């Protein structure tokens, strides 16, 4: 998606801003006075301070570069400073030309000519050419590259944000009852032993509460020693009749 943050008042980026300042102050693009430009640039940056950080970062990067250029230009040896200045001039000239062409093209671009959709002739569009498995293999490496850099993050990264498994309380009621039909009584803790997922645990807990409320089970003891006991004991018939299907 196009970053809305680019809708800065006038400038497409730091180079755009620099060109603006150069034009405004009638500076020579090929012989930039760095300290003068830097002051003006910082002035603009300060004016834009309330703007989006993301945009600012690109502008700040340029600010840092200008500061560095200024520092270097203060050194007795001028070679590096000169080189950096030429580099910036070159970049600005290049961007200026890009803007000029873009404007020329914008005048000519007619994005409103109509063309037709292809006629709807019923075709079997099935692909009939043949390829070798190696082509697929190579295409995969083309897409992925050789490093792991391009492998997307594992879905696990997103699991906290996007997955929430919903466990129904009724499924856990069945689970609890099944356990009790075998033994009639079970340690409270054991009901939770097979699950670690949070929604499983909560659903199991709610299931036990429901069963207590429905007077199907009874809880004895406390803390770690608590047990859950089936109230209508000998419920083999239940198992056979009602819950067989499950």
């Amino acid at each position, binding site marked *: 998606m196009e970053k809305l943050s680019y809708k800065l008042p006038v400038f497409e980026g730091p180079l755009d801003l620099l060109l603006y300042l150069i034009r405004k102050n009638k500076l020579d693009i090929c012989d930039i006075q760095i300290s003068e430009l830097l002051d003006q640039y910082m002035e603009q940056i300060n004016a834009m301070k309330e703007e989006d950080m993301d945009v600012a970062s690109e502008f700040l990067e340029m600010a840092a570069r200008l500061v560095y250029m200024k520092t270097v230009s203060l050194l007795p040896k001028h070679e590096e400073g000169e080189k950096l200045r030429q580099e910036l001039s070159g970049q600005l000239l290049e961007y200026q030309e890009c803007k000029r062409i873009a404007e020329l093209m914008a005048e000519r671009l007619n994005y409103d000519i*109509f063309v*037709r959709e292809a006629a709807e*002739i019923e*075709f079997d*569009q099935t*692909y009939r050419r043949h390829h070798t498995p190696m082509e697929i293999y190579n295409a995969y*490496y083309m*897409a*992925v590259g050789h490093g792991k850099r391009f492998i997307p993050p594992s879905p696990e990264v997103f699991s906290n944000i996007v*997955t929430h498994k919903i466990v129904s309380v009724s499924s856990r009621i069945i689970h609890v009852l099944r356990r009790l039909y075998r033994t009639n009584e079970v340690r409270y803790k054991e009901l939770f032993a097979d699950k670690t997922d949070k929604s499983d645990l909560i659903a199991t807990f709610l299931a036990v509460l429901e069963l207590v409320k429905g007077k199907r089970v009874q809880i004895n003891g406390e803390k770690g020693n608590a047990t859950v006991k089936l109230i209508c004991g000998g419920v083999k018939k239940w198992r056979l009749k009602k819950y067989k299907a499950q």
Partner: protein
Amino acid sequence: MEIKKIQGAIEAILFSSGDPVSIDRIADALELDKPTVLKIVKNLMDEFNREEAGIRIVQLDEQFQMCSNPQYTPFVRRILDMRRNTPLSQASMEVLAIVAYNQPVTKAFIEQIRGVDCSGVLGSLTAKGLIEERGRLELPGRPLLYGTTPSFLRCLNVSSLSELPPLEKTQQPEEEENDLKNVSAG
């Protein structure tokens, strides 16, 4: 507006619309009365509908439509047919490869690898019968999953996916990823 311009405008309208256009709508758009428009359209039809013409204007009740002359359909068919049989583009190949090695996959997964939108490519690969939809992922938005088809195997002249060259270890989606993919796809 002079007659020639009105004719041109009607030509452009019928050409661009594709569907039949009623005389009323044309009259509205050109801000002219219906009888005038009707007369000009009729003239236009006379001009167009010569026997050898490639484009014809047909009348359907009160509507008009531009269509190609049926006598040239065999040629048109050949052209459109050739287009269909063009080799896969590189973008298509890459998307196909990603689907083949990671199926079932979502569009988002493919786009993450390639770094660019791939809706168009997925559509054309589906139309070509090389990939197909494979249900949806149980995640917000319920994204579609894609996998390869038997046609894909035929195209590669292999009998199963296991005959694809194995990926190097580092390229294989990790175990946990696979597990998760299955879990979340369930």
